[in-house]
């Protein structure tokens, strides 16, 4: 077992884990943060995207021990004092989700896009989402939601 400590959604956490534990397993099984999902086993689908020190990463492609000392933000940490993050609100307003399974990864990925590019075009949004699969929405409303979310984030 290996001891690993990190900050998750502002809380310091320390756990003993098997060295092969993935970050997503750590979040889901050790911390019960089940909003981060696993949709594939080849790092393609992006349902597990979280922020690691402010950058989006696929939590299925990192070991928990690689995140020693890092700051991790998951979908559960976005809303502050019951107030939705503008990107969360935009997904709801623009019907950017159906079954909801890809949604946490989409939102976390979208926020990182806007951090890089405050006012992305539709083409830039579609290109950015190459690492996030959705089977329900045809991406149409996800693209609209991200555009609106970017605008309300101040882009």
């Amino acid at each position: 077992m290996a001891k690993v400590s990190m900050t998750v959604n502002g809380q310091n956490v320390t756990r003993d884990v098997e060295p092969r534990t993935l970050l997503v397993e750590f979040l889901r099984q050790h911390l019960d943060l089940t909003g981060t999902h696993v949709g594939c086993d080849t790092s393609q689908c992006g349902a597990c995207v979280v922020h690691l020190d402010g950058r989006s990463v696929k939590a299925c492609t990192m070991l928990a021990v690689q995140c020693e000392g890092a700051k991790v933000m998951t979908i559960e940490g976005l809303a502050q004092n019951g107030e939705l993050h503008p990107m969360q609100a935009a997904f709801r307003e623009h019907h950017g989700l159906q079954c909801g399974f890809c949604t946490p990864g989409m939102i976390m990925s979208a926020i990182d896009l806007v951090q890089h590019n405050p006012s992305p075009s539709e083409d830039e949004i579609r290109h950015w989402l190459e690492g996030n699969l959705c089977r329900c929405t045809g991406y149409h409303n996800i693209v609209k939601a991200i555009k609106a979310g970017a605008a309300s984030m101040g882009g």
Partner: protein
Amino acid sequence: MAENGIGASVRRKEDYRFITGGGQYVDDINRPGQAYAYFLRSPHAHAAIRGIDASQALAAPGVLAVLTGDDVKAAGWGGLICGWMVKSKDGSDMKAGPHPILCQGKARYVGDPVAMVVAETYLQAKDAAELVEVDYDVLPACVATDKADQPGQPQVHDGIANNAVYNWELGDKAAVDAAIAAAAHVTKLDFVNNRLVPNAMEPRAAIGDYDRASNGFTLHTTSQNPHVARLVISAFVGVAPEHKLRVIAPDVGGGFGSKIFIYNEECACLLASRMVRRPVKWTAERSESFVSDAHGRDHVTHAELAMDRDGRFTALRVHTKANMGAYLSTFASCVPTYLYATLLAGQYKTPAIYCEVDAVYTNTTPVDAYRGAGRPEATFLLETIVETAAKELGVDPAELRRRNFIEPSAFPYQTPVALVYDIGNYGAHLDKALELADYAGFAGRRAKSEARGKLRGVGFSCYIEACGIAPSAVVGSLGAGVGLWESAKIRFTHTGVCQVLTGTHTHGQGHETTFAQLIADKLGVPIDNVEVVHGDTDKTPVGMGTYGSRSLAVGGQAIVNAAEKIIAKGKKIAAHLLEAAEADIEFQNGSFTVKGTDRSKSLGEVVFEAYVPHHIPQGLVEPGMEETAFYDPANFTYPSGTYICEVEVDQDTGVVEIDRFVAVDDFGKVINPMIVEGQVHGGLAQGIGQALIEGCVYDEAGQLLSASYMDYCMPRADGLPDFQIATTETPCTHNTLGVKGCGEAGAIGSPPAVMNAITDAIGVRVSMPATPEKVWRALQNRQMPQAAE
């Protein structure tokens, strides 16, 4: 219109939990003391299993049990069943080979579960599975759909000759043969409808939980229809009587058909739980999903469309081979028959249609319903052959269709393939689509593309679908093992909260919102006071679940009927409280009013009186306010639409870019336009995926080569256009809501529109998926003779 009632694009009630990480899918649930399962699957498409040695695995750290087919047999449990009996044209029953929970003596496809390892942790179970030694005697595999029933092919099931499941027919063969013989023109085409993997983003999962005290089970599973799962697992697998089996499907992360079916793994988790006396959880890895979720489509077809001198269709003759995979999945048999051949009239008044279907076994993953289920295959065939006929006749494809449309005055319309369409106006959506797509400007755009060295094409699809499945007596006469009615219970509490318990289930369609809108509209209850309850056999009335775009047209109507009963009871109470005759009470906007007066009681007051009946004389009504309705539809519903796709093809790379996609649908009345548009978007993406990039590839040994997201091409955001969506409306005539259903239309209508556009652009037909390589090769072959000139 009531606030947030019918017709309002209400933002979804369910979204808050999904956007904050609060959704609860099966894999998010953990039961106290839970153990984990891993399935060892056959790496061979066809192999005799000479023996299984699990001794090393059993000795591995954390391992609690290793189950094989022998354990299932010892428990006295049966196998999985196909719930729809299709008879061959000679009257004989379809040939259903046994479908064991865990392989018994033979593996019949890559992924067939051979053994199940149960351990303290998932990784321990997975590690130990590598220590299970299976002695396989590898056999030649039968793989190709078109060759499966030919002599000399490996036999998938003992005693089922030529892998033939059934040889089924529909229609008047003699009339069709005569019409084709007498036709002025016959268009003939061969089709392959490519095999697809549904790929719901949430992988399947199950938790089996045996309770010693009650000798009963709870199954958490990823299901579109928990009651059907309970029925099959209880009555056919024989796990426990129905009242000893509770099936819970919490949030379901997409299904598209693949979560209708009853699967091996959920049954095995129940058995393992009873054996180790702990809850047993299994979650599929995506690589398992690819080989073990039922696939879709996989038809090989020859079709002939006959017409007279004026281009009026006189007959359609179709022969299809349908691949069922290695076992008959839950509803597999009805997909290429009653959900396929019955749709071959499309929007046209073709007087004679005949369809013959040979269903075959192969050593591949079972094939069953996938978004549209039979109807996309019918639409692809029909709309491709009609467009080809238009080209051959030199008639505009829109004009040829219009010439053959069933006119609005002809409804109800009896097709030659069993269905009676209740209503439609096909010209209306064709006109609207032509306008939205700026069809008149196409020639100009094509010239501009050519000037840039690109090829531009336009393609049509005028689809029909039969949904709102289905009148029980009709489907019963066709072989269905169940009735396809739906149930609803409306329960008010003392304080006026309204619970709607429905037998349908949602896997992304937004039922919690749409059904609340029905209540807001019919009963005047604010949607925030409505709670929709579904997905738990212990909570809801028995219901048939969600598939075939049935939830609103059938389940929604059951809710409305239950609401009518609430109103009827409320009128009795209100009449007493208002000292008026019951016949003089009107109900509107949540209030019971004495006609022609301002004397009224709100629904909340009446509900409170029903629960606190201090002023109700004995015998007037029973206390309480809870009503149940079961609704069996009188007919299928028939959404229809026109899709127009315009593509631009890069001649150097073969890449097809969709320049515009217009979808005009007639779904009857629309409850929530925002949700309906979303359903269309998703369907279009799946249909365009089938047309351009998706497809299963098996090698000759039966290995699925496209078994991960590295190999199976999924639609991504940058490969899809911004869709142009619109609706026309002819309300369904046989439900009071006037609704038809919208879940599958996009996937049904879009593949032929895309493929017709590509054919129009490059001048030759290619098969789906029209990958850049295929298109490029077609262009090279097309250009070679020109180069030689």
